[in-house]
């Protein structure tokens, strides 16, 4: 059981990004929120990525933007995964009308044009990082919920869970003691997925002017760059507009590589369950998941 080379590449890229976000302002202590040089400088010794139209250093903004993106991504990812897991577990464990209700809720939330609703909601709430995070959580919990629900519903019927139940184990005990080890990879995968989606959506929303204008998140830098009238006719786009975009792409690709290699490691075609389950896919998926669980439960059954 080893990660593929692309998985290690993803981890490496991710570590670089996180280190830059954490220690960037320490290594490169130029202020991001005031003018530190003449406006519209080309990249130079003092300003490796030049300055924008107000004389703000672009590299310093980029580093702080990384911190914002990773905060938003992880904040949304962790909370959405936890909330989604809780919902999915309740639906799968209790079944019946609770299951019906929660899963219809998932279907309905999946069915609406999410990005547009996010935009309108954020516009109503007003530009602020906290609002952005809240709105993103509101539309990110469905994928973990669906994943965890289907696994819980299946695991619930396993003998070891039935045995624990017959001894009087409550749902929380069953979850932490018996289900969590089996569900952990799925939760990890949903964490990666929701994090990367949140980073992308936050950038998109800031790009449309829904972010906090005083915070240089990556989307906001792009917005400022495109608002500069001569951006089309000069070279400035190369460092001003391209650098935040490349940063987002860097993080997104790192997360995707990691996601795919973990997915391949456990043999769960998680990607399939992001869409509506139809009969054929569900059976295929069950087989894939069953195969992975047998390999991991140490029962020695190898298909």
């Amino acid at each position, binding site marked *: 059981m080893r990660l593929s080379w*692309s998985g290690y590449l993803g981890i490496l890229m991710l570590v670089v990004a996180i280190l830059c976000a954490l220690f960037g302002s320490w290594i490169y202590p130029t202020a991001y929120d005031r003018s530190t040089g003449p406006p519209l400088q080309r990249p130079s010794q003092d300003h490796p990525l030049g300055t924008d139209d107000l004389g703000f250093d672009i590299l310093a903004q980029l580093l702080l933007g990384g911190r914002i993106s990773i905060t938003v991504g992880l904040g949304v990812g962790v909370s959405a995964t936890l909330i989604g897991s809780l919902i999915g577990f309740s639906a799968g464990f209790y079944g019946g009308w609770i299951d019906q209700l929660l899963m*219809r809720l998932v*279907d*309905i939330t999946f*069915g*609406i*044009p*999410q*990005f*547009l*609703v996010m*935009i*309108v*909601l954020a*516009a*109503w*709430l007003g530009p602020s990082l906290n609002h952005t995070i809240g709105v993103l959580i509101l539309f990110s919990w469905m994928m973990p919920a669906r994943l965890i629900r289907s696994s819980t519903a299946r695991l619930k019927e396993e003998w070891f869970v039935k045995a624990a139940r017959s001894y009087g184990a409550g749902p929380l005990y069953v979850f932490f003691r018996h289900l969590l080890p089996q569900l952990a990879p799925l939760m990890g995968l949903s964490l990666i997925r929701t994090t*990367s989606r949140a980073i*992308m959506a936050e*950038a*998109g929303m800031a*790009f*449309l*002017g*829904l972010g906090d204008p005083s915070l240089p998140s990556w989307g906001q830098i*792009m917005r400022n760059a*495109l608002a500069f009238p001569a951006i*089309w*006719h000069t070279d400035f*786009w190369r460092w001003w*507009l*391209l650098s935040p*975009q*490349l940063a*987002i*792409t860097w993080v*997104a*690709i790192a*997360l*995707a*590589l990691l996601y*795919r290699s973990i997915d391949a490691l456990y043999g769960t*075609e998680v*990607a399939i369950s992001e*869409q*509506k389950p*139809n*009969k*054929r896919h569900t059976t*295929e998926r069950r087989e894939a998941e069953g195969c992975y669980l047998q390999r991991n439960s140490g029962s020695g059954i190898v298909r």
Partner: protein
Amino acid sequence: MSKPHRLLEYGLTLFVLFNLNFILPRALPGDPLLTLVNTDQSFSVLTAEQLDYFTSYYGLDEPLSRQYLKYWQGLLTGELGKSIYFKEDVASLVLRRLGWTVLLVGSGILLSSLVGVILGSWAAWCQGSWFDRALYFFLVCLAETPVFLIGTLLLFTLGARLHWFPLGGAMTHFASYGSRPGQLLDILHHAALPVVTLALSRLGSSFLLSRNTMVATLNEEFMHTAYLKGLPGKTRLFKHGLKNCLVPVITRTLTSLGTMIGGAVLVENLFAYPGIGGLLQQAVLACDYPLMQGILLVTSISVVTMNLLGDLLCYRLDPRAR
């Protein structure tokens, strides 16, 4: 899941959306009227009489139940209120702009599905070879590349540097076309870059879906039978394989419309394209709430309809899904 069940679910989705649309502006902090009157550009002080006038003008002095009934009445008759910024009927404004977005999203989806299916089948055919692996890696990366990066690169290289394509807009302003084809050509010329951007951003997922489906199909027993019958590779791939692989591709394409529209909002802003997305951003910046609601309603109705269509097509095309 049975067919009426699905229909009911889509109906429910729309119902929830319509209700949210009614409740949210009233439930969120802030007086809807004050936000309507005090836009960012102008802050006006109202006398008590003026306030009363506007309250009754927008029907906000009536009890909630009555407002709710009126809201549904408006929905059913296609009356979505008036845009504050554009001083125009929301319904006609949105419908006029919708055409451009449909053009972008439609051609983007078509292009990406076509190329994705071809590349996906090809990669599945020589599964495990270096070609498959390189393509897979490249397209996984492409699938994660944000639309704005693809758009920016295309815009600056093909648009600003090489001058092959216009930098924005949907038509040349103040141009007089001698003929119908000339106008069409101009529209296509303007749409080319945004369409290619959207198509590229979706190509990755389209490729992955068709490749995975094709790999699964190629391992099915009827494919072995076809091989043992001595049918040539081309027949097997296109006649037996592709037929089976197309169903999920078609349904997935229709159900991915919601995501596509999200991407279209960003692309339209980058290319200053006069579609729904551009309109939405103007509405957001001007705090034009009726317009935002209208856009949201129209797009949700179209997305839900497309999802429904995808499901129905799946039933029709693939008897196994029934």
